[in-house]
């Protein structure tokens, strides 16, 4: 019999949770060193369970678990703290990040660089400045694509020439920025916007607007037809 694999005090964020049996919970977690896992938190739904105030999304946690199967068993959870709970629109943005991870991140595949980008994004959302929300989402989306091996080339055009700030480009997923031709599936974007995105500078309103469209098009390539529930919710909120 194989020895049961144990993980001790792993830096982790909880992405989602489902009720399991009478009093337990299945948690979908993203750990820095071990990637995404599903854990059973036994008794976590009992009225006075200590885990209740601990197993919260958007909070850095130290989790220990064991087991060989796909579904592992949570052994202990420790609060790491330092991040106020997300509220309002920032909370909705947090759900969006979690949905991206749940839909795009393969299980049991460590991605410390994506984890670090996620942690940075959550901390930025927790600071709660509304002007910081959209840039935070764009930075995370780019880091996620890069971590998954789909980083778009932002500083060179499709022929390998440096992007010129004053030119307009047609960005086609999997091909890059075309300087001359226009393709229907592409996104029209200013050279300056591409250069701003490459350095994570979203102060320009045009960059903010164009980067959003570009990222949406790139993410759609990976997500396929599966709708993003949280994007719809954010749009609903916007239209109120």
């Amino acid at each position, binding site marked *: 019999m194989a020895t049961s694999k144990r993980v001790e005090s792993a830096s982790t964020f909880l992405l989602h949770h489902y009720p399991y049996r009478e009093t337990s919970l299945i948690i979908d977690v993203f750990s820095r060193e071990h990637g995404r896992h599903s854990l059973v938190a036994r008794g976590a739904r009992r009225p006075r369970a200590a885990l209740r105030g601990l197993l919260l999304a958007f909070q850095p946690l130290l989790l220990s678990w064991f087991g060989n199967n796909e579904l592992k068993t949570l052994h202990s959870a420790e609060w790491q703290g330092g991040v106020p709970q997300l509220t309002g629109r920032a909370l909705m943005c947090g759900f969006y990040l979690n*949905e991206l991870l749940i839909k795009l991140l393969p299980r049991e595949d460590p991605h410390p660089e994506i984890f670090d980008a996620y942690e940075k994004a959550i901390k930025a959302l927790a600071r709660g400045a509304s002007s910081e929300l959209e840039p935070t989402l764009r930075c995370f989306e780019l880091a996620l694509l890069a971590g998954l091996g789909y980083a778009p080339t932002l500083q060179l055009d499709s022929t390998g020439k440096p992007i010129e700030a004053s030119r307009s480009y047609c960005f086609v997923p999997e091909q890059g920025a075309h300087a001359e031709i226009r393709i229907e599936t592409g996104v029209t974007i200013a050279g300056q916007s591409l250069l701003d995105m490459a350095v994570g500078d979203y102060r320009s309103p045009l960059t903010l607007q164009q980067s959003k469209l570009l990222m949406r098009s790139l993410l759609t390539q990976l997500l396929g037809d599966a709708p993003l529930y949280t994007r719809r919710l954010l749009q609903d909120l916007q239209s109120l």
Partner: protein
Amino acid sequence: MKTPTTLEALIQALRCLPGVGPKSAQRMAYHLLQRDQAGAGHLASALVDALTRIRHCNRCNTFTELEVCELCANPARDHRTLCVVETPADLLMMEQTLAYGGLYFVLMGRLSPLDGIGPREIHLDRLLNRAQDGMIEEVILATNFTVEGEATAHYIAESLRSLGIRSSRIARGLPVGGELENVDSGTLAQAMVERRAL
């Protein structure tokens, strides 16, 4: 030996209860048939009664046999405040506090963005219509302090704001009579974040 199909159907039907798997459904079925046929009869007729008589209150959406439940119809309640809760059990809990004399709206759910449960799925328009009766001056959001409950409260607050209706959120913090050393870290940390000036 093959199980009779009527028995199979009963076992299968019992599995619709939360937390009831095949094993316990079988145990329940045998118990009802072997040891408590009278109890089984009561259960069957009570279920049929409930299904035919119980409906949602036109005003607060909770379970009732009337068109408008007794609480909503009570003239002694304050018709200017509306307290929004997730479930009928939450409403009962709130009533037990004796701290609130206004009216309620029971969502019968909450937003769960990652499960695709949005404002349409929980029929938020019914709450928004209810809040626009011309009498309501304040909507108190008493959804749970889970991330889903928070998201629900935020969405409702924003929707009400766009209609020009004032809303508030119940406060969270340490339990009354609670000692710091026995409180979980999440609660205590948030109590620190949400501290107030004296």
